[in-house]
């Protein structure tokens, strides 16, 4: 597992290396913490030069802090290297927006729709950003920490008698 980080580091150590790129760990996997504006650029580099050809999962997180409340964690898999790596991006509390990765990995389509549905994170330039589990007219984002477990009465309009 140590090698994959070396490969990633060597490919990312170009002069335009973004500031704020940090390496950390998620249990025994490596994780890159990066600023939101560099996401697509780094994702493309990882796909084309390190062969991370599959986007396995997109995890939305609501940290419920005042600043940088939302977080998106991307789970990448390389079929050639047989390795996994995570990307972590922190988002603004008031206006959680991030560039969509659908252009890099088409599988991001539904995964990002799920994060949008559950957390209200807007993915810019997403081809089809609709709710996926909840109905279209639902007003809230159920996995946010301020959404109660029992739901909000009247949030789902029932058919009239």
């Amino acid at each position: 597992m140590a090698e994959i980080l070396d490969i990633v580091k060597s490919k990312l150590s170009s002069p335009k290396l973004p500031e704020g790129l940090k390496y950390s760990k998620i249990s025994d996997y490596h994780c890159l913490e990066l600023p939101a504006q560099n996401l697509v650029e780094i994702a493309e580099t990882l796909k084309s030069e390190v062969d991370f050809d599959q986007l396995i999962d997109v995890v939305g997180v609501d940290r419920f802090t005042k600043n940088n409340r939302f977080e998106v964690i991307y789970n990448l898999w390389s079929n050639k290297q047989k390795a996994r790596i995570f990307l972590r991006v922190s988002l603004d509390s008031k206006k959680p927006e991030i560039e969509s990765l659908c252009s890099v990995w088409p599988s991001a389509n539904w995964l990002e729709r799920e994060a949008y549905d559950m957390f209200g994170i807007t993915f810019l330039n997403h081809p089809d950003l609709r709710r996926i589990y909840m109905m279209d007219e639902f007003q809230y984002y159920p996995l946010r920490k301020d959404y109660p477990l029992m739901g909000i009465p009247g949030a789902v309009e029932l058919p009239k008698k």
Partner: protein
Amino acid sequence: MINEENRLVDSAKSQYKQNGSKSKILQALETEDIKAYFDDALENQLVLNMGPQHPATHGVLRLLVSLDGETVIKSVPDVGFLHRGYEKLAENMTYHEFIPHTDRLDYLSPLANNVAYAMAVEKLIKVEAPLRAQYIRTICCELARLASHLVWMGSMAMDVGALTVFLWGFREREKILDILDILTGVRFTTSYTRVGGVSLDISNEAITAIKKFLNEFEPNLKDCRDLIERNRIFINRCENVGYISREDAIAIGLTGPNLRASGVKRDLRRDEPYLVYSKLDFEVPVHTEGDTLARYYVRIKEMYESKKIIMQCLDKLPQGSIDASNTKQVLPKKEKVYTKMEELINDFMIVNFGNLPEKGAETYFAIEAAKGELGFYIISSGTGYPFRLKIRSPSFCNIQALPIMMKGCLISDIVAIMGGLDPVMGECDK
């Protein structure tokens, strides 16, 4: 009376149309290139709504299909009819309390879900199950794979018109459920694993039952295969149907047998070995055709490999404890709870306050379940409840590939493609 009917029709229309335009899912179906395609003299565009209450959708999957004659131009799957909000529920219960809920994810292989979840939690709290428990879990995973593939084989054969295989496949699965009854005490929703081990030791009776089942399994499976594999109708309905190329399969995020049928040798049992798979001898079947028939053969071959794995596990099954010795994190046995003070206190603490991982600890753990990569991403807040629990469900990502597979196929092929993909909506909708 007529006014009343009109009002009902109006309310239905207003639900269908939003802001004076078509509903969002219809808009998704009508992209620009489709409109160009339909710009012909016949103007025979037809939008067909399949499901959610359709027997061939294996649950509650809804498909909007845009047709030109009998040819599918575009399809938009609509999921979420079985959404129970498990990720939200998980944030409001202890790690142990969530185990029964994992049964309801992929309800055709509940044991594999139990194992995946328990191992994710163990990775989070840094506990390792003893070797005997790991062997039992491996047996469980493979039994679950067999059960799931048998249901898939039966229902897929029924989708394309072979009813006998359905009955015979279910007969075999019934035997597995009887084994689970002996092994776990429950036939269907097993909740068998605990954090740090399994709830019951495997008995000699269970071992005998598994061996008896496996000895009869191959001839019975051969009977089923003989019915369909050289059947002209079955071959014609599966061959070159639902094709997905290797590149597309990788890009759209397929995992499991569906990806291996497109020629990618990706199996977490080999690539990220967990449990005792690194000590076992088995093959990973790969086909390169990428059609429904290839998916059929991959799964059939996997069943033989599963049989091999279970046999090896039964041979190598070591003696020893089935629970990790870390008493502060692992539920003690009931007889000790009733007789020993220390265990009683630990039991009380775990049941009432839950396992306590480090604050801010994060982990991801995935297994190769019957449908593909089943993973749990857990973030801990240092309390007994997880801060966030994300389920990476294989069916969700597999269904995303349906529009690619269906493009250009005939309407009757939709059923065969869905059957070949093997989605389970309980897992997809979470």
